[in-house]
Structures are given as C-alpha cells and as structure tokens.
C-alpha cells in the first residue's frame, strides 16, 4: 500500500485503535473512509492468504494467541488446557482469520434478555441499551460488507457431505429450519475475492480469501485511504490519562521490544474479551485505582463464552466431514426462547469438523484407551456438529489480573469460568437433540464432546444504560471517560445464541459513524 499513512508518535489528533479484528479492524477502516486519522496497534504479525497453512498445528503455531494466560473455575478447559482458555488469533485481522464465517443476526428478544427471561438466580442478566429496530440498518451494512450468503443477491452455499447428513437427520427428527445458513463466505465471486472452493481448513485462514477476514479486506482498504497506519507487533501495555481524566494516548512495546508512547485524541480498545479488560485493569492509576472505566466494578466481569459442546456421530459408511466448508450448515429450530425445555434462551446447531490432529486433542481431552481410539479409528465415517447457545452472564465469571507476567513484565489475564445451571441444562438438551439427529440417520455411536477452548469470548466490558450496571454506553463509549471506547465483543451485554462476529461488525460500523459525527461536532 503505497499510500499507507505514517503518523508521528506525538500526533494527538489520531484515533488509536488497539486490535485489528472484527471490531478494531472494521472500526479502523470505517473511520479511515470518513477521513479520520487512525493508528491501529496490533500485537500480532501480518499474514495473508498465501501465508496461511492447511495444517492444524502448524497453523495454530502461526496464528493463535499463545502468550501466557491462567485459568480457574470448574470448567473443563481449566483442567485440560489450563494455559489456553481461548482459541483466538494474534495477527492483523485478529480472529477474523480463524472464524468459520457464520453470520446471523440476534433474534429480537435477545436484545432484551432480562425483560424476556426475567431474573435468573445467579445470573447478572441485563437488557442491552439498544434494540432490534435500531440495529437493523447496521446489520444490513455489515451483511453487505461481509458478502453474507442468503442476504442481498448472494445465493446460499452448496452443502457438503457433513451437511447432507446433518440436514437429513434434522428433517428426520422433525426440524424444518435447516439450511447452509448465512455465511460470510463468497458463494459467488465478490469484492475481488473468489467463490468458496470447498477446501476445508476454514479455521486455519482461507487460502482463497473466499471467507471474509479483516486481514485482506478492511485493513488494506483502510490503508488505501491514506488515513490508516497499522503497526504490527505492537503490544499495548497501558492507556494513559491526564488530570482531567481524559485519555491521552497509549504506551506500547514495539516490534523491537522498545516502549513507545503514541498520543491520541480518542482510544478504542478492541483486543478481544480477555485482553481488553486486562488492559483497562493494567492501566490503573492513582486517579483510577481499580483500572480505567471501572467505577462500576464491572470491568472483567460477566465473561460469557456461549454454551458450547460438540456432537459427533459414527456411521456404517464414510462421511468425510472434513471436505468442504467447516461450518456448512445450521439448524435453528432450538434457537428460540422456550422455558418449557428447562432453560431460558436458545441454541443453534452448526456443522463442524476437525482434522485428525485436532480431533485427537479435543474429542475427549485426557481420555485414553480403546474407548477413545476406537472412535478415532472411525474418523472417516464421522459427522460433526457444534452447539452454540446463550450462556448466562455471571459476575463471578471474570477476567482478573494474574500473578503471572508476560515477557514484557505485564500481568496476564486470569480467566475464571464456571457453568451456570441454565448452561448445563441447555448443553444437555443440545447433546440429546444432536445425538437424536445422528441416530435418526443410523449412527452406530454418538459422542457428546466437551467444549473446546473458547472462540466466542464476550461480555467483560458490558454495555449498559446506567453507569453503575456496566462499562460502556450504547455507543461503546465508556461511562467514565468520554474519549475511551470499547469496540469488540467485550461490549456484549448478553451473548444471544448467535455467532457474535456479525454483531461485532455491525456495532463497529455504527460506532465509527458515531465517533466521526461527534468529532465533527467538536464533542470528542
């Protein structure tokens, strides 16, 4: 990008965005398109489709966030993957390189979880300060940006083998809302990117660029405006503020490990749900002893990860589930709210497959012996699906600062999570339904598989109407500091049943509009 901008460290007219994924990457481009000067700081490196690797562990080594984190709570991840609470990406474009592409809107009632479900004991439910009608136009813009199938003029994707088993099973048990879904994967050539070639390895970065990722769409488009500078390998340590309590810029370690200070007019935090609260907490000062934007005490709290789990079925004949789109279809018949099932909220079922290396690691972590290996022996005859359901926000599920430090000497995030009884009831229901779907197609064995390290990480800087209930207002602006924003999934008040990326993108487009307008009006 010959025109990519270069801004001075002392330039206090820039908006500094921390993180370049679905939230930060989109916000950066949207602001740049409006003529706002942006410096985006990305902890990871820059990788493009030609760099991605069709190999699970090699790709993991290339893209995953493997800096230290610690865990606690009774979730199995804390035992099986104690240093890896999340499977997310450290790279320009963030986890949009890894995501599967499922792009579905929240259901109307999910914006108002407290009102719809009522108070749930042990849950810290709250209504979002925005609603379905307000978000509709932003969802439209997000769908157009991402080229979501079955929106606009984009046709659906064809179903692969894994989907065909899933669809037939769904119909056999009486479900009707099953399709190849709404995917941010090109079903036709679009946006100078080709249509899906059914390669698999969606989680490892799409080598065709058929799946939308900020890494090769919004980031280069933003850079082409001349208003966006992306600094990779820039690890932010602290956000600084002045005596008036306004943020003035950020300290970060550059690619050579040197501490730099970048001045800023506005700072937007978009480091995903662990790093964003970690940064606010690590930025504690004498004026803000509990961390920035934390007068409510809610920074880091209400961590949500979706009620997940997988179901694999083994059949008499081959399925070869790994061929083609990883998340190839969705069943939405259980997505609604129906407390007669024994839980509030709903869940989606989506196809999923893992290669042999990751199947061995994630099918039943820690398990060994023939019960385990006889399942793997049938890998070729397996079909797989993933559960994505709304989990309950709990104040005690939270990100705090650990005693462990990273290579820069900064305290790392400790992630504490325990299931709420509603989460357990929902997961068990989904396990039963998932197994019924495969049994209806003649499965000889079904495997209700525990949740993997989280890819949907939400809620640790939640949005609230009132300052005492959360961290940010309806624009993602912190209640406490006018020129400090949060732009990632940590804003989520509640998690809904849907994969979060489309909503993160829609919120980022909307936030860019708000920030640019407020800057023009002289309010920021």
């Amino acid at each position, binding site marked *: 990008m010959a025109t990519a901008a270069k801004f001075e460290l002392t330039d206090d007219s820039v908006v500094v965005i921390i993180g370049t994924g679905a939230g930060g990457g989109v916000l950066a481009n949207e602001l740049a398109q409006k003529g706002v000067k942006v410096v985006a700081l990305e902890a990871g490196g820059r990788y493009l489709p030609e760099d991605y690797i*069709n*190999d699970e*562990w090699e790709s993991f080594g290339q893209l995953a966030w493997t800096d230290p984190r610690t865990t606690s709570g009774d979730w199995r991840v804390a035992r099986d993957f104690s240093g890896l609470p999340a499977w997310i990406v450290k790279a320009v474009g963030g986890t949009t390189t890894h995501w599967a592409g499922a792009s579905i809107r929240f259901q109307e009632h999910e914006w108002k979880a407290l009102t719809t479900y009522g108070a749930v004991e042990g849950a810290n439910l709250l209504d979002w300060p925005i609603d379905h009608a307000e978000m509709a136009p932003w969802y439209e813009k997000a769908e157009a940006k991402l080229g979501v199938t079955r929106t606009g003029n984009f046709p659906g994707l*064809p*179903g*692969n*083998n894994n989907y*065909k*088993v899933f669809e*037939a099973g769904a119909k056999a048990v009486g479900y009707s809302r099953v399709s190849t879904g709404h995917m941010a994967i090109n079903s036709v050539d679009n946006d100078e990117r080709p249509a*899906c*070639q*059914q*390669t*698999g*390895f969606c989680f490892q970065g799409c*080598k*065709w660029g058929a799946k939308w990722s900020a890494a090769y769409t919004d980031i280069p488009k933003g850079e082409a405006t001349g208003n966006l500078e992306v600094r990779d390998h820039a690890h932010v340590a602290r956000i600084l503020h002045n005596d008036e309590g306004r943020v003035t810029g950020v300290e970060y370690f550059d690619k050579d490990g040197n501490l730099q200070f970048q001045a800023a007019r506005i700072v937007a935090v978009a480091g995903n749900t662990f790093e964003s609260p970690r940064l606010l907490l690590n930025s504690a000062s004498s004026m803000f002893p509990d961390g920035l934007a934390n007068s409510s005490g809610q920074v880091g709290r209400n961590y949500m990860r979706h009620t997940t789990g997988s179901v694999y079925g083994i*059949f*008499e*004949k*081959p*399925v*070869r589930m*790994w*061929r*083609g789109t990883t998340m190839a279809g969705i069943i939405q018949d259980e997505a609604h709210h129906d407390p007669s099932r024994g839980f509030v909220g709903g869940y989606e079922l989506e196809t999923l497959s893992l*290669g*042999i*290396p990751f*199947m*061995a*690691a994630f099918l039943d972590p*820690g398990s*060994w*012996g*023939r019960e*385990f*290996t006889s399942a*793997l*022996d049938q*890998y*070729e005859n397996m079909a797989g699906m993933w559960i994505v359901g709304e989990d309950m926000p709990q104040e005690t599920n939270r990100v705090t600062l650990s005693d462990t430090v990273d290579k820069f000497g900064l305290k790392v995030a400790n992630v504490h999570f325990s299931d709420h009884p509603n989460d357990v009831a929902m997961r068990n229901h989904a396990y039963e339904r998932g197994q019924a779907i495969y049994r209806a*197609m003649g499965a000889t064995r079904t495997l209700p598989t525990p949740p993997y390290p989280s890819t949907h990480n939400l809620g640790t800087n939640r949005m609230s109407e009132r300052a005492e209930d959360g961290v940010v207002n309806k624009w993602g602006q912190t209640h406490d500091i006018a020129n400090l924003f949060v732009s990632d999934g940590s804003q989520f008040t509640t998690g809904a049943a849907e994969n979060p990326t489309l909503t993160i993108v829609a919120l980022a487009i909307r936030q860019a509009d708000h920030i640019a307008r407020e800057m023009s009006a002289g309010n920021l």
Partner: protein
Amino acid sequence: MQELRKQGLTRRALLSRAVAAGALAVTGAGFIAAPNGAWAVEVRNVTEQQMATLLQMARDIYPHDRIGDRFYAVAIKGYDSPEQAQMVAAGIEALDAAAREAGFDSYLGAGWEADRVAILRSIEESDFFQTVRGGLVTGLYNQKDVWPIFGYEGESFSQGGYMYRGFDDIDWL
C-alpha cells in the same frame, strides 16, 4: 521416518540377540528393533528395556491396531535424551512396581492389554504418565504418515480443494 535408523541386520542376527519383550526385540546392542528387522530405534541415554517399555505404553495408551510400531517409535523417540533419562527411569520404575503389585514381573511381562491397561490406570495421575500421554497427542497423531490410515486427507488447497473432488459425494443417505 528419518528418525529411525534402518538397520542392515538379518532377522536371525536380531532374534539371536533379542530378549523377548512383547512384539519387540530388545537387542541389548544400543537399539530396539522390529523382530523382522524392518526398523530400529537407537538408544543412547535410556536403556533398551526402558525404550521398549515406553513403546508398549504408547500402544496401550492409544491403541490403533492398524498403526504399526514404527509410528509409535517415532512418537517416543524424543525420550532418549540426557534431559529426559532420569524422568523416564523413575517413571518406569514406578510403572514396574505397580505391575509387581498386580502380580506381574514387570509391565512388559503382562501379556494381555487389559492387564497392562489396569496397571496404567493405577498410575495415570502421575506426572510421568501424563507427560507420555500428552506427548503422544501430537507425537503420534500429528505424523502426516498416519493420517491416511484414518482416511484423513490433510492439505487440500494445492489440489484446488474439494469443489471437484467429492465435497458432496456421499451416496448412502
């Protein structure tokens, strides 16, 4: 299989020097080898008996009857190092002690998989067992040469994906 040294040994020479240890030959000559001489693993820092025990342990932890010993041997070869020797010696000593408690001469002396698995269950909380098991998850299953045994096809981009190679070819629904 570059980690394995092909031995120019005759079957007779191997067998004549072998101490019986399950399906393996422990030759006492600085390596363990398949009885038919098809492959061998050199040992420098652990004993032949210890390496043979590790190999049987690997098979019993993740038994796949269609996966040959040579793949398991690759997965455990790394324990033959100065850094690991003490851990291996102590771990196998404890494993053999557990076997004796169960009425066998040693872990390798238990002829049935079920007996050996029961012995392993009795030590499965130990660091030694968990280290060996955890190492196998990548050491065994991330070998590209074992993938075809499971039917897994690996990398597909260079072949144009599966758009024209059977992404939707299921024929039994």
